[in-house]
């Protein structure tokens, strides 16, 4: 018998609810193995403790009546708490409204082919108004960007050039024809005209792309290879 079998045999004895008697095989192994001897002593204590388990506890008198009364009442699972009920109603309302709005938007954006939208159709009129407003807004945004970007790029290049020049910065002479499109533009122009040269090395590095857009001198033709072909 090895140590693993020793514990297994002890469990078999406890399974059989007959662990009190001596066992020659267990005793033989325990006498040669101190670890299993201690383990056997612990199991022997447990076996005796199992004999002391008392009678099963019983519920208080009237338990059956209480259960039968509860069985006669509606099951608690069927009673939905008010909070849960209210949450479900609110969720259903949200879903209903969402579906209604979705259907309204979908039908407003659809015009059947070959069918002219009726002048009194409110969804169609709304859609046309919306499209017209969107077109105007898009055009205005593009015009604004076009107006603002060219002068801004020119001023940026001049600022960089003036920051690189020694001595007092030249007056940039912002064109009067270009109407400022925002207060930012006005502020930048005022600062530049006042001679503020705010660009350090890192700023020049960041705005270097403005220099690259300036026309560069044509590169010299490549030298003919020595020795010629």
């Amino acid at each position: 018998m090895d140590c693993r079998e020793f514990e297994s045999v002890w469990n078999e004895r406890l399974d059989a609810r007959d662990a009190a008697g001596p066992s020659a095989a267990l005793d033989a192994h325990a006498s040669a193995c101190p670890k299993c001897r201690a383990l056997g002593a612990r199991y022997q204590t447990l076996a005796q403790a199992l004999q002391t388990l008392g009678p099963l506890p019983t519920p208080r008198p009237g338990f059956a009546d209480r259960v039968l009364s509860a069985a006669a009442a509606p099951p608690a699972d069927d009673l939905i708490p008010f909070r849960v009920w209210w949450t479900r109603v609110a969720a259903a309302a949200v879903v209903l409204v969402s579906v209604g709005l979705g259907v309204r938007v979908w039908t407003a954006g659809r015009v059947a082919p070959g069918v002219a939208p009726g002048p009194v159709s409110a969804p169609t009129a709304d859609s046309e108004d919306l499209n017209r407003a969107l077109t105007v807004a898009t055009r205005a945004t593009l015009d604004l960007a076009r107006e603002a970007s060219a002068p801004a790029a020119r001023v940026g290049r001049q600022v960089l050039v003036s920051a690189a020049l020694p001595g007092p910065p030249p007056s940039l002479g912002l064109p009067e024809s270009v109407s400022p499109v925002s207060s930012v533009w006005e502020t930048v122009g005022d600062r530049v005209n006042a001679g503020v040269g705010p660009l350090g090395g890192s700023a020049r590095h960041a705005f270097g792309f403005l220099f690259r857009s300036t026309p560069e001198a044509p590169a010299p033709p490549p030298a003919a290879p020595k020795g010629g072909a």
Partner: protein
Amino acid sequence: MDDRALVESLLAGDPHAPRVLIERFQGVVFALCYRMMGHRHDAEDVAQETFLRALRGVVGFDPGRPLRPWLLGIAANRCRTALGKRVRRPGLTESAEDCVDRRPPLSDPDDLAFELERALDRLRPEYRTVFTLFHEQNLAYEEIARALDRPVGTVKTWLHRARGELAEHLSRRGVRC
């Protein structure tokens, strides 16, 4: 009336059958619940819920099956659910297995039953369930496996580990026989 006749009476709608069922099995069901919950009031609540579920679920029950393992299986499940709720309840998160045993050493080595019950309280719930069903309710391995819906090998492993932990705990408490 044996168990089979009792089930047939329940299925036939006999108004006296539910009381017979409860009175016959309230002891074993309550004992398991008490061992698992460690509190009489909680044990009664869980035992009551067990019988309510059994009375509702008996419709599909096979009269040829034994009633006791079925009821104990329901009770074990209800206990596990109740213990889970108890752990999630604020202020009651400390389980017995997390507690440090600060009790004084055993003064009366003969009080084995008391020490065994305290040691049982410290077992993991699944170990405690299997130990109780085997040693207190005298169910066989196969019956426990059916009741808990676990393989027999798992039940054996849990029971052996439960015994090992109990024996170790008794030894640490200075219990010698």
